[in-house]
């Protein structure tokens, strides 16, 4: 009984207006016209950027490798269609700063011709390690938005004692319905992907968590998982941020991931439903991750929809297809409205992590008029990590970052619940993002100052060594000279 009580606990969170109705009832559109040019960034994942293996002028087929991964945590990038590479250069990144990122520009030839590759036989006969190699080679990253290379997580599963694979079908962000539609329409494929992942991780069971505002998706997944008793599909309450891994883990398994720890510490690893679907496509059909379902929604969109587009499609082309009113668009957001990034313009490409593109009107975004904190503590009750957002923000405002870390800044997940409930419109989560970045900068500065000290010491040592050497040489020279003089004198006296 106690266990049951503990298991059903949810901490914090908010119930935001969902805005999902406009897209959740329509099938995923697959008729997006192939763009003339695709802008495929070489870094669409956490870790090191991929290194191009093609050159300008090369002809490539759909699914062909464009850039291979670098180091332990990285992911390769593939051609989203067939055509010619016309440029490999710096282009604006889909990031709030729109700073340049190395990008391969692919001019499509309209044929959309696949690269022919032999299919591996029955994947369940393969070595589990082989599965993560295939997943890594297909460039699959976490499609929920974090874009962490999935193969690394599968390997982690084999190395640690993982008893449960959690599949995140929470999709707790307002507006987004791409996972919802994927589960409704492609549940069989997702379940197959989950089975493949279980095989790759050597894990026995999987639990799919779906928020209870998606009954159709729940039903479809339930039906598809019937033949496999080790895959459980469970409903979870609709409360943002239910899709946060720790929240879902706490709810579904009753275990709390320790602060500073990882989900693997409690024997659980979580993947997104979109990732499971990509794993199915990579292993069963030999198709790398070259397209994804994107939710296009928001008040300025005339035809909101979920649409499957090739990676590298410009957001502006997507907006044209969905009839976005440019004048009414006050803010463009990539991802969900709670955690997504505001983009400065729409000439930026769709990447692997783009779950949604929102064109929000003035009415939908909050006015920025801030007021002083009234210490109502609504942010404290909304924080899913159990932190004190108001105190942290105060300390950060006074530049006391270490003091903010002392009360748990590092456990903040930037979910935005505190900013959402704040009646004074204080940009709390902005403070935390600033502070986290600043801490990284300080760490780098610290590292650099250590390096500098080492460089200075090296230089001083070298100068001392050279000086000593010169002195020794000088001494030797003087000694040789004295010797010569002596010999000369001796000869002189002899003569």
């Amino acid at each position, binding site marked *: 009984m106690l266990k049951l009580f503990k298991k059903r606990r949810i901490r914090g969170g908010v119930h935001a207006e969902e805005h999902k109705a406009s897209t959740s009832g329509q099938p995923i559109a697959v008729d997006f016209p192939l763009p003339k040019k695709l802008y495929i960034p070489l870094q669409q994942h956490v870790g090191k950027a991929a290194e191009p293996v093609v050159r300008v002028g090369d002809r490539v087929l759909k699914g062909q490798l464009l850039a291979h991964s670098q180091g332990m945590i990285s992911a390769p990038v593939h051609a989203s269609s067939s055509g010619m590479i016309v440029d490999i250069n710096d282009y604006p990144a889909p990031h709030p700063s729109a*700073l340049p990122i190395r990008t391969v520009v692919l001019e499509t030839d309209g044929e959309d011709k696949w690269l022919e590759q032999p299919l591996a036989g029955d994947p369940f006969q393969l070595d589990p390690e082989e599965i993560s190699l295939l997943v890594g080679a297909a460039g699959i990253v976490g499609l929920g938005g974090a874009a962490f290379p999935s193969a690394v997580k599968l390997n982690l599963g084999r190395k640690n004692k993982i008893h449960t694979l959690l599949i995140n079908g929470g999709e707790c962000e307002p507006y987004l319905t791409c996972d919802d539609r994927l589960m409704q329409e492609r549940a069989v494929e997702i379940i197959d992907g989950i089975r493949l992942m279980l095989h790759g991780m050597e894990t026995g069971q999987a639990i799919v968590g779906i928020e209870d505002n998606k009954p159709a998706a729940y039903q479809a997944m339930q039906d598809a998982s019937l033949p496999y008793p080790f895959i459980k599909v469970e409903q979870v309450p609709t409360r943002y941020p239910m899709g946060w891994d720790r929240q879902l883990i706490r709810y579904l398994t009753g275990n709390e991931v320790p602060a500073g720890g990882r989900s693997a510490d409690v024997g659980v690893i979580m993947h997104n439903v979109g990732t499971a679907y990509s794993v199915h496509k990579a292993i069963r059909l030999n198709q790398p991750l070259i397209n994804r379902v994107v939710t296009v929604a928001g008040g300025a969109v005339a035809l909101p929809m979920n649409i499957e587009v090739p990676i590298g499609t410009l957001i502006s082309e997507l907006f044209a297809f969905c009839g976005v009113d440019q004048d009414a668009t006050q803010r463009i957001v990539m991802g969900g409205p709670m955690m997504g990034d505001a983009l400065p313009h729409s000439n930026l490409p769709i990447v692997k992590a783009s779950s949604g593109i929102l064109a929000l009107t003035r009415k939908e975004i909050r006015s920025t008029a801030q007021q002083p904190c009234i210490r109502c503590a609504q942010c404290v009750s909304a924080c899913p990590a159990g932190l004190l957002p108001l105190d942290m923000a105060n300390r950060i405002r006074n530049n*006391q970052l270490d003091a903010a870390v002392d009360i748990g800044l590092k456990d903040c997940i930037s979910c935005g619940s505190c900013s959402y409930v704040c009646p004074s419109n204080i940009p709390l989560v902005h403070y935390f993002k*600033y502070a986290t970045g600043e801490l990284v900068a300080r760490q780098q500065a610290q590292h650099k100052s250590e*390096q500098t000290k080492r460089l200075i010491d090296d230089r001083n040592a070298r100068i001392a060594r050279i000086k000593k050497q010169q002195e020794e040489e000088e001494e030797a020279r003087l000694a040789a000279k004295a010797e010569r003089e002596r010999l000369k004198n001796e000869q002189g006296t002899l003569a």
Partner: protein
Amino acid sequence: MFILTAVVSLTTLGLILGLMLGIAAKYLKVESNPIVDELEALMPGSQCGQCGYPGCRPAAEALAAGEASPTLCPPGGSSLAEQLAKLLGVEIDLSDVKDPELLVARVSEDTCTGCTRCFKVCPTDAIVGAPKQIHAVVADACIGCKKCVAVCPTECLQMHPVEVTLRNWRWPKPSVSEEVATC
């Protein structure tokens, strides 16, 4: 015979006095304030003198004696001020501390004559080159001390702000003035 006596007595004297000095150095050692050492270790160590003290050690001594504020070091910025305050156990108001703008030196290839003067003065060996070859700055190792700018005969070395890339881009601090203006 006289010589032998002199040599023996002086050697004995020298040995005894040396032994006494050695013992005195060990047992009567003047200990330096350990907090000063700790403070000095935190400081940049470039002896730039921007704080008004002749170097990092005197500045650390002044800090330990309570004559200077933890915010005294401009190159260290607020990060260092916070560390110093923590070590000294004092509360400080950091809202006025400006973090220094990071600069790196860059060689203009049109005007570099390959005179080698700059890389001889660079304290971190951040400039590479050879006589009559164009020199180059390794930006990661440059600490922005401007010593090379002073010795360059053709003014081809200039300080530039560090380029903002996706790797070092950070969220700006939310402005407080906005908040005050609306309340």
